[in-house]
């Protein structure tokens, strides 16, 4: 029974909220009624058995709860409620590119007029079905603060009339890219949590980000960047078990036990990239990042990595995104292809824009270590340690720094 309930929650939550949001034009009503319907299921299903169509059962139950609430409130505040009811009956107009209630819900939660942290919170609550305490815990904020953030965002959606609809075709690429940014933010917060009191990673967030991106992919199957982001997440998640040591230390790519990578996720990620390559369309940022990860995950040993291919992909990425962080990652690949000296020169050029970025100092420290410049390397590790907020990263940087003494120049 708990299995059936968990499955129903995972599979049906977004659908129930989305259907109610469309019918009643009010996210608050939709969220509350969906939560009540699931609570009723928790009470009744163990006694009465799981209904043959759990999704339909939940939607019907939630609709009844919503109507009850609206009746109560209509008595209290007639005019106001009437105005809210009208909102839901707006015709979708000519812009209904893809007609799915869940897709409308995603676009509303990720609307650019909302603050980025509100988009993340709303998406996890209304689309992902995570509870308020779960979201608050995942982002290490007080439950009351998270509740307020979500309440304020819902109030703005209502007051400013953020529409519940899939954007027009000409706005779609920009809006999809906004949704992907939210999903990537959720994934990254799970992959490399920034809180100093957090563990080395938060698997529930990466898993949730992948689940939501799979949903988006099902809704927008021909969008290359959606496929690219999903592939990127899968190929990153595939290395999860090999990435953190038993002692909570981050294990970098070159030191990972590749036998512990998840072959199923890698196969799925590679298949997505092959599918995108077959279209012949020019890849966007996420697709190139996914392709870089595909090259890494194709090598059974670090020495078997096709570094020239990786540098070529970074060159491509630089043309799409000329940010210093991309240039830094390209320099890391250059170190393997042309040696640490060439790479260090490229890294030094990024000193001004990346002075406050831990990965810049960590990369510099590694390159200086390989060149035998021990004292400079030690200072760079110190700076990297001071800047990183992640416990697993602090552990590996500290070990490398403390191992420095007397090391002979290498590679």
């Amino acid at each position, binding site marked *: 029974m708990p299995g059936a309930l968990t499955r129903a929650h995972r599979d049906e939550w977004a659908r129930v909220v989305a259907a109610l949001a469309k019918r009643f034009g009010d996210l608050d009503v939709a969220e509350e009624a969906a939560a009540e319907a699931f609570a009723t299921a928790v009470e009744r299903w163990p006694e009465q058995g799981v209904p043959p169509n759990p999704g339909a059962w939940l939607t019907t139950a939630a609709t009844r709860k919503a109507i009850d609430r609206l009746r109560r409130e209509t008595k209290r505040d007639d005019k106001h409620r009437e105005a809210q009811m009208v909102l839901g009956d*707006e015709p979708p107009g000519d812009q209904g590119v893809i007609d799915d209630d869940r897709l409308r819900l995603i676009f509303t939660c990720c*609307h*650019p*007029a909302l603050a980025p942290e509100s988009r993340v919170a709303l998406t996890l609550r209304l689309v992902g079905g995570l509870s308020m305490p779960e979201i608050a815990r995942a982002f290490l904020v007080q439950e009351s603060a998270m509740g307020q953030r979500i309440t304020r965002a819902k109030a703005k959606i209502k*007051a*400013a*009339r*953020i*529409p519940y*609809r899939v*954007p027009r075709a000409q*706005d779609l690429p920009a809006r999809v890219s906004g949704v992907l940014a939210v999903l990537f933010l959720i994934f990254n917060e799970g992959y490399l949590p920034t809180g100093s009191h957090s563990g080395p990673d938060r698997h529930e967030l990466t898993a949730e980000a992948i689940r939501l991106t799979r949903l988006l992919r099902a809704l927008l199957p021909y969008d290359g960047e959606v496929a690219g982001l999903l592939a990127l997440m899968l190929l990153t998640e595939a290395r999860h078990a090999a990435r953190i040591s038993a002692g909570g230390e981050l294990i970098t790519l070159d030191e990972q036990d590749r036998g512990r990578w998840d072959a199923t996720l890698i196969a799925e990620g590679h298949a997505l990239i092959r599918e995108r390559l077959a279209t012949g369309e020019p890849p966007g940022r996420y697709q190139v990042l996914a392709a870089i990860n595909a090259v890494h995950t194709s090598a059974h040993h670090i020495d078997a990595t096709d570094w020239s291919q990786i540098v070529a992909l970074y060159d491509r990425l630089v043309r799409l995104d000329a940010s210093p962080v991309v240039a830094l990652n390209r320099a890391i690949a250059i170190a393997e292809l042309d040696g640490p000296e060439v790479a260090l020169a490229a890294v030094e050029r990024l000193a001004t824009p990346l002075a406050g970025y831990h990965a810049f100092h960590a990369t510099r420290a590694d390159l200086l270590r390989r060149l035998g410049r021990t004292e400079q390397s030690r200072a760079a590790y110190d700076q990297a340690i001071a800047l990183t907020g992640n416990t697993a990263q602090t552990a590996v940087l500290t070990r490398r720094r403390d191992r420095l003494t007397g090391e002979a120049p290498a590679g």
Partner: protein
Amino acid sequence: MQYLVTVIAEEANHAGSAEEMAAIDVFNDRLQAEGHWVFAGGLAGPSNATVIDNRDGAALVTDGPFVESKEFMAGFWVLQAPDLDVALRLGTEASRACNRKIEVRPFL
């Protein structure tokens, strides 16, 4: 649904240039033709403002804006739009036409 589109300016760029005024006229014509127009106007600088406090029945009249800030409202549109997406689209064009930052806010 009506939205207030506030034009945000600083002392240095308060007055609009001839090109900006011409671009605003073109935009206004379009707003009227497409049924989004409710009202619009430009405002004199904040140093020309007068504050009145008559809450207790003894009107206190003082010179100057009620809030001193580097940025201030230089003008506004009141627009009719079915939802925020349309209002933001119009706001984007408004910012381009008047060559200033703008703020979009819904009426209650």
